[in-house]
Structure formats: structure tokens, C-alpha cells
């Protein structure tokens, strides 16, 4: 009985590991600042949500994504609800693409990811600048976008292997 319980806990942990990683990433806000690399930053959450909501949405429940977004807003002191909106929009895009795609292709996913984060950054910029009067450095956003795009294939491969191992 105990063994079965342990197995089911382990199964749930494994199954929901993407959302757990997202939660940890948001709370931790790891940024590798201590490496002292100028301008180096990338948005790990975007990559993670994009990949898992595209490939295996049942492992990353949208209600928990919404809560993770709220946590991220508190940690990064953004207006409450902004990250949730971004994350959910990624989920919306991936859900739509999943419905219309018959044969998934990595390059298409990569281009779609670029378009998605471009739209998200534009929405972010508009909301912060127009509605909240928060000054933002567009260059920082652009560099973050560039690094996020560069890191996408690496994490894509890592997540794919992780999915294979865990299934």
C-alpha cells in the first residue's frame, strides 16, 4: 500500500515536473548575475511554457501557469497580472497552432516562438509604457529576446530528452 502511494507521488512529481520547474524558476528568478556578463539575460519561463504547452499541455495546467505569472510579477515587481497575461497568451498561441498543425517541425516551432515573443514584448512594452508610465530600456528587451531565441533550441532538445526519459 505504502509502496503504491510512493509510486503515485513519484509519478505525479514526474508528471508535473515542468510546472514545478516553472514555479522554482519564477520564485528563484535565476539570472546568472554572478557571472558578471553584461546584458546577458534570457526568459527561461517563455521557453518552458512554449515547449510544454505545445508538446504536452496536460503536464502544465493553465491555472497553475496563471499563479506562476502572479508570483513572477511579485518577484520582478511588475504590475500584477502582466506575466500571467503573457504566459497565457503563449498558451493560447500554442493551443491554436497545435490544433492546426498536422506535422510538427522544429524550424516552424522556432519561428513561431520568435513571432510569439515579439508580440509579447510589444504588448509588455505598450502596457508598461502607456498604462503604467514605467520607463523601459528597449535595448535590454531586444537583447533578452535575442538570448531567449538562441537558447530555445538548447532547451528544446533538453526538454525533448527529459520527456523521453520520463515517459
Amino acid at each position, binding site marked *: 500500500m505504502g509502496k503504491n502511494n510512493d509510486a503515485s507521488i513519484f509519478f505525479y512529481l514526474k508528471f508535473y515536473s515542468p510546472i514545478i520547474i516553472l514555479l522554482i524558476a519564477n520564485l528563484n528568478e535565476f539570472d546568472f548575475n554572478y557571472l558578471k556578463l553584461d546584458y546577458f539575460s534570457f526568459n527561461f519561463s517563455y521557453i518552458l511554457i512554449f515547449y510544454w504547452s505545445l508538446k504536452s499541455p496536460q503536464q502544465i*495546467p493553465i491555472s497553475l501557469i496563471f499563479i506562476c505569472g502572479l508570483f513572477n510579477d511579485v518577484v520582478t515587481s511588475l504590475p500584477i497580472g*502582466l506575466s500571467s497575461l503573457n504566459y497565457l497568451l503563449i498558451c493560447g498561441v500554442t493551443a491554436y497552432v497545435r490544433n492546426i498543425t498536422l506535422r510538427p517541425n522544429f524550424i516552424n516551432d522556432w519561428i513561431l516562438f520568435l513571432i510569439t515573443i515579439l508580440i509579447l514584448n510589444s504588448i509588455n512594452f505598450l502596457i508598461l509604457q502607456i498604462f503604467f508610465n514605467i520607463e523601459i530600456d528597449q535595448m535590454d528587451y531586444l537583447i533578452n529576446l535575442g538570448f531567449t531565441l538562441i537558447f530555445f533550441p538548447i532547451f528544446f532538445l533538453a526538454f525533448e530528452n527529459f520527456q523521453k526519459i520520463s515517459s
Partner: protein
Amino acid sequence: MVKSRDDFVIAFRSAFLKKNTKQRFSLLTLIIISLIILIFSNLNLKIINILEKGLQDIVYRSSLIVSIPEKKFNEYYIKAKDHLNLYNLKNEEENLLEKYNAEKLANEYLISENNRLREIIGEQQLSQGSIIAKVLLDKESPFLNSIIINKGSKDNIELGMAVVKGEYLIGKVIEVNFLTSRVILITDINSKIAGVIEPLGIHVIISGNGKTGGVIEYLKDEYYPKLNDELNIYTSGVAGIFKPGIPIGKLKLNDKEMFVDFFTDLSQLDFVKILIKENGDSNGQK
């Protein structure tokens, strides 16, 4: 065309409105909730502030726990980096040590030369020990800025001894009783201290202004262009009353008047040190 529009609508509805079995809210509902929260937080509504405060309490505590591994990693990363830099650091330290050793030798030479020259001109070598005394009374009279200390002739206190706070001069002994003594502070208008403006080596007399500072007396006009606010004033040791080199204050220029900003706040005296004269060796130290 109509078919493709239908496909779009079906795909859109499926993406944004469809709910899974365990899902309570559709994607569109959650997006609308996010937008409502954003609008409310823009309007600075009380409910959003309460939500934010509550979230902050939870998130900051959780964040503290979650970031422990990263902090540890950061710690080890810095340690590893330091370890790798050890060789360069050692080389730098060795070079620095070599430089300091050379400077130390040069200083020793200068000190011995200075002492030899003092002997040649017949100047008395002063070696000074010190006695710590408690301030019993702090007279704030406009006519006499002085303090009474709990040491007197019983403790070998003599007239004219220098009194310091830390390393800075604050006055000299002007009255000695058996158990107590009076110290005139350098801020008193009757206090006259022989000083030297360093590094120019200009000898001056410093007098108190009766308040909190001092003034420079008897200085020829030709020296004015050389002076600036960065210069320090020390006791000159002329007349052999004080040990030379006790720091007094900083020079302050105002038009053609020169003031002294004393290093010590004389209104905050509780314990002071009386420098006892002893005839002795070279370095002015006991």
C-alpha cells in the same frame, strides 16, 4: 475562403474556450482575469493592494527557500574563482610585499637620519608615555574653555603637558592640584600652540577662537598663495613642550583669514590622555 474561416474559428474556439476534464477555467477566462487584475492594479484599487501584499508575503518567504541552492552555487562559484585566481593573487601580493619592504627600509633610514640631525642641532628627544584621565568637569564658559580631569601631581602630572583625545591634540595642562588638574582646550582664545603646516613645513601659532575652531596667527603674507584647504596642521615640537607631529586639525581658508578645523569634537570629551614627558630614545615613543 469560407472553409478556411471556419477552420480558424474552430481552432480558435478549441484553443481558448475548450476546457479539459480537470480544468476549472478556460484559457480565455484566465486571460480576462489577468486583464481585469491589470486594469485594477492600474487604478490602484484596495483589493489589488491587499492581494499584492498577501502575495508578497508568500512569495518572498518561498523565494528565500527556493533560492538557497542558487546561493550555494553562487558561493561555490566564487570560491572556485578565488581558488583559480590564487596564483595571480600570490604574485601580486609578493610584488606588493617587495615594494613595502623597500619603503620600510627607506623609512628606517629617514628616521635614523632625522634623529641624528636632531642630535646635531641639540634638540631634546622626547619620549612620551601616557596616562588616561576622566573628565570631571567641562567648563563651557565664554571666557575659558577648559576641563577638569581626575589626575594631579599624585600621578606625576606637570604643567604644560599635552592632552590628547585618541591621537589628536585637545589642549594642555595649565593647573595642577594633588588629585585634579585643569586643561585649557585648544579652542580657548588664550591657548597658543606652536604648529607646523605640513607638508609645506610652515611654522605657525594656533590660537582658539573661543568657540569650536581655531585661527592661525603670525603668518607672513608671502605664504598665502601656497596654502589650500587640504593641508593638515601638527604640533611642531618647538620649545620642547609637546612631542612634534601630534595632529591638531585641518586648515580652512576664507579670503585672507585662516581657520583651523580641529580633528576632535571638544564638546564630547569623557576620557582623555595626558602625554607624560620622559627623556629617552629616538622615535618619540616609550
